[in-house]
């Protein structure tokens, strides 16, 4: 609660949170906001420019783009959040274990991250999805394999640092169990930078997810995922630019929202004094 209050106190955090709230509300309330079916074909109304009836215009199948962009938010947010916070959980635990244990366990876990780190991000994701075949599930698998290392490295560094602080020494002297020290005393302190990092990671991941769909390796049609909306619009860009612009703006919107939220979080979580 105190964190939330701090977050709202920073202008960036407040705006970011408001943008997220608007997005979430619009996603949940899509049926109330729009009378259209995001999947139904209506060739008679194909490629209509934005109007009072169709706020974002219609696509080449006569589907309302406003409705499709809203319906697409579910896909993009789900993908981005799962692909960030799933791997983050793994990375945090690995980093904690490595940093606190030190020695062989640390060496082993860190060499593992080095191996994954050695591959450029997109090359590895493309390779994994390429082998497994394009689908939403396989996209999750690819991101889980690749995306945890950043968190592992951050948390390991923090853990090493915190382990040497006096209150941890004190906890050890009091003969608290290893797990208790790790989870109750180190984790809450070590996770903060990871959390701040995760916000910018979400921005990158939204783009990465859209890019994968753009290449035909992510979510498959007719899902109105934003990257897919953009790739489907390419042939019509000259006569119906709204088909490309609005899904693109949606990605920008979400990117700004998370960036501001991250900014606010880092201010709110900064230790005082």
């Amino acid at each position, binding site marked *: 609660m105190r964190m939330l209050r701090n977050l709202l106190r920073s202008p960036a955090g407040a705006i970011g949170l408001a943008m997220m709230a608007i997005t979430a509300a619009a996603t949940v309330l899509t049926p109330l906001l729009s009378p259209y079916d995001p999947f139904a074909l209506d*060739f008679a109304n194909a490629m209509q420019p934005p109007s009072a009836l169709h706020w974002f215009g219609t696509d080449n*199948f006569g589907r309302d783009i406003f409705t499709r962009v809203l319906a697409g938010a579910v896909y993009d947010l789900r993908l981005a959040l799962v692909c960030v916070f799933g791997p983050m959980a793994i990375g945090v635990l690995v980093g904690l274990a490595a940093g606190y244990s030190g020695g062989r366990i640390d060496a082993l876990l860190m060499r593992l991250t080095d191996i994954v780190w050695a591959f450029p991000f997109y090359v590895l994701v493309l390779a994994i999805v390429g082998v497994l075949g394009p689908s939403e599930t396989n996209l999750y698998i690819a991101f889980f394999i690749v995306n945890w290392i950043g968190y592992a490295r951050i948390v390991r560094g923090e853990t090493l640092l915190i382990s040497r602080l006096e209150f941890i020494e004190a906890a050890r002297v009091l003969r608290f169990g290893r797990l208790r020290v790790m989870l109750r005393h180190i984790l809450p302190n070590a996770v903060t930078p990871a959390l701040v990092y995760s916000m910018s990671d979400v921005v990158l991941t939204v783009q990465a997810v859209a890019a994968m769909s753009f290449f*035909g390796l992510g979510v*498959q049609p*007719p899902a109105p995922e934003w990257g897919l909306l953009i790739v489907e619009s390419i*042939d019509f860009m000259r*006569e119906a630019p709204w088909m490309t612009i609005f899904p693109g703006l949606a990605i920008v919107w979400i990117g700004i929202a998370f960036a501001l939220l991250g900014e606010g979080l880092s201010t709110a979580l900064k230790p005082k004094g």
Partner: protein
Amino acid sequence: MIPRLNMKALLLASALAMTGLAAPADTLRVAMGFDPLSLDPIASSDNGSIWTQLLIFDTLIRPDRTGEGLEPGLAESWTVSEDGLTLTFKLREAKFSDGTPVTAEDVKFSIERAASEASGWGRFYRPITGFEIVSDHEIVMTLAEPFTPAFNNLALFAAAILPKAQVEAKGDAFFDAPVGSGPFMLKSWTRGSRIELAKNPHYWQEGKPHVDEAVLEVVTEPSARVIKLEAGEVDIALDPPLNQLKELDAKDGITVGQTIPYRADFVQLNTKRKPFDDERVRQALNLAIDKDALVQGVLYGAGKPAASAMPVMAYADPNLALYAYDPDRAKELLAEAGYADGFEAELLVDSGAATSRNAAIALQAMLQQVGVTVKVQMLEGGTQWETTKSGSYDMSVSYTTSDTIDPDQIIGFVAVNPERANAYHTEWHSDRLNELYAEERKTLNGPERGAMFQEMVQILHDEAPYIFLYHPASAWAAKDDVQGFEVLPTSNFRLEEVSLAD
């Protein structure tokens, strides 16, 4: 890149203006979507290769511009005996581009090569069993038993006439720098990028080609071809996106043309798999598709709905009715077949083919209306082909084009099993159709043979191993000063007829 090119053009233009030189050699530049893979006629089945070969090589006879008859090529006249077993050709005085004359010996060599084991089209020519060289300019071919398509097959690219001596001397290397008797000769070939052709100075058609050089530029993205045309980098853009035709035609200095070639688009159904093994299910799928809406919404009106997987060509039955759009009847049929609650299936589509991609999305929505949930799987074209060939698919959006004017080529491909491709990988089989196919090939051209084709197409229509979609138009956009260009019913084009007005 573009500004630099413009700069060059500007410099060139000003240089010309200053020196007052005569106009430079006429070069016709064409942007096409296909990348030619090979210039060996017997090893090709892709459109890029076939179209290019037809500019470099000649055949004895060739389809005329209407696609309804055959006209003289290297043969200036011919006779076919009453029983169809003896074909006599008189060759014209023609030369290969290196100046050596085309002789009956070259003809015999080329057709035998096309019939060889190495040829992908061997079964088209093997029925020709005897060659008698009467003189340098006369050859008689004989068949052991009647095979009506034989004559027509000689008009196919695979029967291109090659210079025997050179092919024998160079082997496969010949096809990297081939010599033919066609209107153009190969100047340079950058694989995946461009083919430069120069006028064949020895070409037998007096005064043709009108242009001195022709360049085929490979531009796979349809919108990019149009942009190149508008930027003045090419003179002709083949297959512009159908949704842009109207807008393009309205532009100053650009003319759009279109024709419906011998082509049919459809969805292959894997009849080895449930529920596609049931004829009622396949018919239901056909009834669930609103073909007029597809023509409007996916082809933007540039095409016609299809009643079968056969292009509309010789012997086509004008009375063959379309599967009417009737989702209620479709649901009834599905219920009769035991799929009252519908089913789920995967639909493969070539991710690079914009029209097919859009068709897939429309099909998905239409089939959902009758309870069939379709999962669209976008694949690279080559992978799609391999996957359907191996039989591990449910449904796949594809098409066929005919390179000849005789329906024998395509019916053998889409409907006969096994023959060429197990009824185009649908694995569907009809004994009656196979019987008719064998019979048709022994029957001389005429109403009797026509009736056999009509019955075959009717069986294909009724048992529906495909969802029949449409016959799309083939379009092109050209600068106004391009004259005489058109896409032929056989989908290829003749550049020797084209001129550039100044």
